[in-house]
């Protein structure tokens, strides 16, 4: 470069400042600071990177140009779920987590970062009301990790290795959980019946070497587990704990698992005030009762209320910090690190805005739209519902009666601007509806599928006719 490289992000690239600082430390050049880096490890050429856009207006044009190639779920009618859900995010949620104070803070102490501690304590507390449990962690990465950790906790507490998996689990989640726990735990699957747990089968497998029973509700296919109390009783009788993986979105109307005996409840908070973000905005919660045995196995930070020198004032701090890898490296429980705090704040704001009535209204709406969608799609000739369980938000339809593959239907409907769902089997399609999916949207999907089954049927017929001709 002939001109000095000065960049708005790096104030001391200003030549006068740089020279003054070099002079102050008595260095001839920046090279001196790298004396410990052996010459043979030094890169002797510039990095081979694309030419930059140092002018902000050029950067914006470039990135907006790229993102402009995306076609979002505002342009497409989407029935996609499978772990990432399209719920409405109130404007106040985005306003709060967009505040520079929250967005750019990190790891300050309870004094200068009082707001962060309180906001996350409140997140814990709001989730606790929704879940009817006394302890919720500062969010871990996502529901996958939360579940993996919850099962590991059960293993560490019991010293047992076996986990009975009672529900259908999202395959990617299962992949993560399996790789995470496999050194310490063995996952054993009890096949589901009609979408939910085979309680009898489960009971028959229980024994004193079972660390935990793992129930997912809603399951991978959106089925709500109705026999939780029975499962819990059986698990407890065998000395196992009940780990429930869930999505908290429905607990305005559904009984929280803790009231049916769950010991650890875990899952993802993406539904609570986070955008879809191409699957890039998840946070994991782990909730337990106020029981030291469980709490001391939690790896995440737990913010708690504390008194201060001023009577009546609330202070905050880390509860039982000595559990953590920050305190004890490999002797801590798993590890703790930068995870998803901002998303936790978002979920807290969301729950505060929604309140009890909002969560109730939403829960009812989701149940109603789900059932309506099941009715409309199930009524199409050749289409059958995957099972008869109660469903929240997601359900499967079986296309085999219409001679359609799920992938084929997805392809056909994409051509009409519809993402009809996720192919989860050759003929099985996982369909998701939320409060963003109106009656008209569902009707449009039903019509589009119906027209494809018609088409398929007539094609089949004409193929048959051709063959017979």
């Amino acid at each position, binding site marked *: 470069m002939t001109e000095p490289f000065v960049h708005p992000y790096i104030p001391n690239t200003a030549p006068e400042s740089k020279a003054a600082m070099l002079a102050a430390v008595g260095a001839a050049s920046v090279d001196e600071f790298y004396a410990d880096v052996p010459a043979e490890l030094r890169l002797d050429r510039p990095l081979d990177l694309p030419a930059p856009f140092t002018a902000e207006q050029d950067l914006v044009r470039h990135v907006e140009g790229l993102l402009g190639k995306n076609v979002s779920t505002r342009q497409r009618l989407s029935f996609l779920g499978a772990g990432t859900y399209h719920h409405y995010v109130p404007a106040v949620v985005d306003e709060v987590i967009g505040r520079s104070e929250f967005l750019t803070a990190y790891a300050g102490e309870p004094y200068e970062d009082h707001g962060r501690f309180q906001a996350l304590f409140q997140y814990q507390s709001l989730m606790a009301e929704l879940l009817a449990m*006394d302890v919720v962690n500062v969010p871990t990465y996502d529901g996958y990790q939360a579940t993996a950790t919850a099962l590991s906790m059960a293993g560490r507490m019991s010293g047992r290795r076996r986990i009975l998996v009672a529900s259908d689990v999202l395959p990617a989640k299962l992949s993560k959980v399996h790789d995470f726990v496999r050194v310490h735990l063995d996952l054993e699957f009890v096949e589901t019946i009609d979408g939910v747990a085979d309680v009898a089968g489960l009971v028959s497998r229980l024994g004193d070497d079972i660390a935990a029973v793992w129930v997912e509700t809603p399951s991978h296919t959106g089925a709500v587990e*109705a026999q939780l109390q029975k499962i819990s009783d059986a698990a407890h009788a065998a000395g196992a704990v009940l780990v429930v993986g869930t999505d908290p979105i429905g607990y305005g109307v559904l009984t929280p698992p803790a009231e049916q005996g769950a010991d650890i409840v875990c899952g993802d908070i993406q539904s609570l005030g986070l955008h879809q973000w191409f699957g890039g905005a998840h946070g994991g919660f782990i909730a337990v009762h106020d029981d030291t045995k469980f709490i001391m196995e939690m790896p995440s930070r737990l913010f708690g209320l504390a008194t201060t020198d001023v009577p009546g004032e609330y202070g905050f701090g880390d509860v039982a910090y000595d559990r953590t890898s920050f305190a004890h490296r490999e002797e801590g429980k798993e590890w703790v690190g930068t*995870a998803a705090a901002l*998303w936790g704040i978002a979920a807290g704001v969301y729950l505060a*805005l*929604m309140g009890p009535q909002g969560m109730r209204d939403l829960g009812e709406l989701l149940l109603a739209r789900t059932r309506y969608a099941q009715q409309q799609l199930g009524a199409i000739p050749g289409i059958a519902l995957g099972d008869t369980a109660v469903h929240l938000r997601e359900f499967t339809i079986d296309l085999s009666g219409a001679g359609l593959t799920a992938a084929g239907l997805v392809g056909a409907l994409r051509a009409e601007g519809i993402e009809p769902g996720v192919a989860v089997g050759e003929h099985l399609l996982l369909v998701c509806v939320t409060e963003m999916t109106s009656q008209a949207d569902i009707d449009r999907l039903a019509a589009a599928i119906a027209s494809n089954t018609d088409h398929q049927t007539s094609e089949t017929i004409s193929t048959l006719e051709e063959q017979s001709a």
Partner: protein
Amino acid sequence: WDEPIIFELSTPGERGVLVTGIEAGVRDAVGDVVGDLPAGLRRAAPPALPEMGQMRVLKHYLRLSQENLGADFNVDIGQGTCTMKYAPKVNDQLVGTPALTAMHPLQNPADAQGVLEIVWSTERMIAEISGMDEVSLHTQGGSAAIWSNIAMIRAYHEANGEGEQRREVITTIFSHPSNAAAAKAAGYDVITLYPDADGYPDLEALKRALSPRTAAIMVTNPEDTGIYNPAIKDWVDAAHAVGALASYDQANANGILGITRARDAGFDVCHFNLHKTFGTPHGCGGPGAGANGVSAALAPFLPGPRVARESGTDGSTRFVVREAGEQSIGAVAPFFGVIPNIVRAYAWMMALGADGLRAVAEIAVLNNNYLLKKVLEIPGASAPYATGRRRIEQVRYSWQELFEETGITSEEIGVRASDFGMHYWTSHHPYLVPQPFTLEPTESYSMAELDEYAAVLAEIAREARETPDVVRTAPHNQTVHHTHHDDLDDPERWAITWRAYQRKYFGAPVDPAGRVGSAGDRIETGATAAEAAA
């Protein structure tokens, strides 16, 4: 502000946001879906969430935000190892578009070409920066990336039939503790090495620890002391000599961008934190994002799904999604990783380019060595190890002399610093450096700001000698006062949620649904809401 806990702001009947109604056609078709729920599935009493008007919710959280000290507000160089740097506002603006926020990860890839291209390009840029062959952006933070490192190492040895044999992982005490913790979580025995007398990593100690049982070495370099291990290649070679892999924690590569690369030192795997080196915001502790780089030999073990570029016969390119292969460790996180941060990191690199990244590194080390000089001028402060030598991007300092003289601890000085609108952090445990504090000025702060920060430390050191009680009884100028942390380690007294607090402290009756009685009669006096305009 003296802002109450949000539950204290509840007023029956208030609403924060309304949910859209159930269409008449839907209601007619489905009937009373709640009433129809099977026995036991219908919640008996609504959750005891607060009931608040929208403006009050907003006001509450805005006030809390003002009680928080973001990196945008202070000279945020006190959180050493964490690389607090400028997260450009333009990047926040760019990622806020519905063209990203409203994308579902399972949409037709043809509808996601923009974001897929950014993921792919970011991987390629980080591959160039690290020298590694392949990069994955799936992980959600630095420690998660360390987990992926060890998970891939484990899978590699298992694939080679050495899974049972190699049960040990070696790290150093000045490497990030998550290396030890993740290795333990993956089932390994952890061996931690201590530095030599000069604070340099001890190559002889490593050689003694290595054996056919070693699965990997997992080290940070420069270490948390800011000292670069000049024998790093010898470390890697020694590991390789016993068949172990070498894993490089480059969470903070801020001082060496464009200077030296992981692969050039022979590492098999490495990771970066996008929220450290690559300028994404820290979000009060996440979301962060990790990038894992691997050599070609480890590439089959990378998490999936992966984004690939395909060229058409007409020279056009398109981006496709490939599911994880046979040997992959599988999904480590939902879908493609922390997309908002990946896009921010992409934009950050594209705003700087090769010259800019090198300037980042050079100015970061210049700033660090300048600050080192300033801090060492403060009586009572020292920088143990590698005496007289330059450091890379940070320094772990010690107040031991000051402590011996005054009895004031580093923690106390940190609390007092908050009164000056500054923050600092001591160090990870254990405190091998006594009375530690770790400063990392990054490239984002001007000379004047570094001078200001050093002046505050000097002032507190003066106070520690002349008016130690001022330091000892800090904070004096915060929204909250000296907090009693003993509450937090006592299971009888800790209160991790408001409902637990009500139950434990007020014996609030818990109804069957877990709804507690009305909150205490805490009076909010106007007099303490007085930081208004601050």
